[in-house]
């Protein structure tokens, strides 16, 4: 009995803690249909959106766009994604489950395109249109893909970097990973542009921190230590750039390095306002979410769509961060 009592006390405590926290938290909880809700409950067409993640602010913004589109176009969506961008198996499972629910269309940002080929063929055979978004799916099956041109965006960053460091010197890159489409494209876009247009600039190091803020901080510090002549640092996603910013702060290097980032988030926006970060490229995550659901509805109705939908990207810095057109694209 004693054991049982003690146990119940412990679990009660934990539950109460969780409840208190849950209730006290601001009531801004998203009103989206939970991922577990069966589509059969509604008569509206059902479109599952399977993303590459859900924890990062970026994916939350994509989700918001998808939800806006669902509301405007009167369809039901669910939004889910694996916990990390390495979990191919989990995403395949999510896709399989989505197929089993007989949806009107599926939006997919594949972690690994090749792993999806059999499932895509299955969807095609069942007449379910697939819409790619973000990194897209490397296959002819998706009717269209709504995505940022990451290579072009990273090339723009290379141009800005060159301009800000005076066209010569050493720069370094830290990215999230070397296997995902966005990781590959951003590093490639930046590197190729530097090599092609700025022979006096050398990229002394390119490392990967998995988007983990702490690891990216320690990696960035080591890179700065190893290259005392470093003039610029490019962080290729939000977690990476936060690492660079932390490193610069911890080494008291603010103002001595040209730091350029990607996407937004509170910390990065603060740094841009303060001048410790020169600027960043923002994608249009809400637009990506909106346009993929929009395309899915069109495909469902049999409309023809262009092979790619460019969702655009924009350079922002201290001077235009508060412009309404830019501010609308940034997430905190």
């Amino acid at each position, binding site marked *: 009995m004693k*054991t049982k009592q*003690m*146990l119940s006390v*412990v*679990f009660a*405590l*934990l539950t109460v*803690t*969780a409840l208190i*926290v*849950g209730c*006290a*938290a*601001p009531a*801004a*909880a998203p009103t989206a249909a939970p991922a577990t809700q069966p589509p059969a409950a509604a008569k509206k067409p059902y479109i599952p959106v399977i993303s590459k993640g*859900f*924890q*990062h*602010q970026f994916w*939350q913004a994509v989700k918001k766009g998808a939800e806006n589109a669902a509301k405007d176009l009167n369809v039901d969506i669910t939004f889910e994604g694996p*916990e990390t961008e390495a979990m191919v198996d989990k995403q395949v499972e999510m896709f399989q489950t989505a197929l089993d629910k007989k949806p009107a269309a599926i939006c997919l940002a594949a972690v690994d395109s090749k792993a999806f080929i059999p499932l895509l063929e299955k969807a095609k055979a069942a007449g379910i249109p697939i819409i790619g978004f973000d990194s897209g799916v490397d296959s002819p099956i998706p009717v269209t893909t709504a995505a940022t041109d990451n290579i072009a965006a990273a090339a723009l960053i290379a141009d800005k970097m060159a301009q800000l460091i005076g066209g010569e010197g050493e720069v370094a890159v830290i990215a999230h990973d*070397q296997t995902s489409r966005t990781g590959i494209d951003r590093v490639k876009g930046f590197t190729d542009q530097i090599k092609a247009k700025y022979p006096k600039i050398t990229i*002394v*190091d390119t*490392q*990967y921190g998995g988007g*983990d*803020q*702490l690891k990216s*901080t*320690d*990696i960035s*510090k*080591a*890179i700065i*230590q*190893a*290259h*005392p002549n470093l003039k610029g640092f490019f962080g290729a996603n939000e977690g990476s750039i*936060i690492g660079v910013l*932390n490193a610069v702060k*911890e*080494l008291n290097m603010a103002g001595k390095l040209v730091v350029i980032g990607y996407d937004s*988030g*509170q*910390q990065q926006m*603060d740094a841009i306002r303060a001048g410790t970060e020169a600027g960043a490229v923002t994608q249009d995550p809400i637009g990506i979410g909106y346009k993929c659901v929009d395309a899915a509805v069109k495909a469902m109705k049999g409309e023809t769509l262009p092979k790619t939908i460019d969702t655009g990207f924009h350079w922002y810095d201290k001077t235009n961060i508060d412009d309404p057109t830019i501010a609308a694209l940034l997430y*905190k």
Partner: protein
Amino acid sequence: MEAKIAQPRSLFRSDAMQKLLAFGGLLVLFVAFSLASPYFLTPDNIGGIFLATAVNGVLALGVTFVIINGGIDLSVGTVMTFSAVMTGQFITVWQLPVLVGVLAGLATGALCGLANGVVISKMKVPPFVATLGMLYATKGLSLVVSQLHPIYFNDTPIFNQTAMGSILGLVIPALDPIKNVVLIFFGAAIVASIILTKTVLGRYTFALGSNEEATRLSGVNVDRWKTAVYTLGGLFAGLAGVMIAARLNSAQPALGAGYELDAIAAAVIGGTSLSGGEGSILGTIIGAFVISVLANGLRILSVPQEWQIVVTGTILVLAVYLDRRRKR
């Protein structure tokens, strides 16, 4: 009983030798990296290595207790994150004093550890499974509580400043790269070492790990002490949570998974035996430094990351292999 009596002597032998071996290895790494790059042995970089060791080091302290006690704790990384998130919840969302938030972070860690301990000792769930469950639970709770948003400490700059300032640097300017958060790590290590070697809890930690049945037969309340060990492990994870939140000036709800492996690796490289009953705090600290020196040095040399991971894995196995060979 025989095993118990034999323990102290073999412990002494193993301890001294293993530490010497690990410390020698650490020295070799230091010398090699210093020769290979002029940027390795600079005050700022050494400070950076200490800083990079602090969080993993504190996690490893807790893990050391649990492993010596004959168990394992897979939940330390995500308990750390959950503690960081709760600290953020108290300080930033509920706007309570920083000290209250810090205590809440520590309490969160200790509570999770207590839950682990109760599930393991009273419900007889194997430690691997119980703490794996806690890994998932706290990973989810971090996301639930934070609503998937990082919690920043921008309204309370004192939190980050206290951790990232340098009391040592105020006294001796040359020591400025050694930040306060590193001192907290060392302080925690000293406390851990005292608990492990000078208190009843420490003695029973070893006793439980080397022969649980004999310990039970000699009249020790095994369940209670085991629970205490896991609670202590959780408390260290809570401390690591406060430290990572202070350093990043934010509670990042998505990180943490995978950190437990680094912590376990630090303990094992430092000579803690995964079969229990053997290990030391000094060894674990050396192990934690081996991992961070290796990571830092290879980065300084611009070795591609994929190879850094391979090298770390090889060193881990090599360290344990040498340890085994010596004991044979």
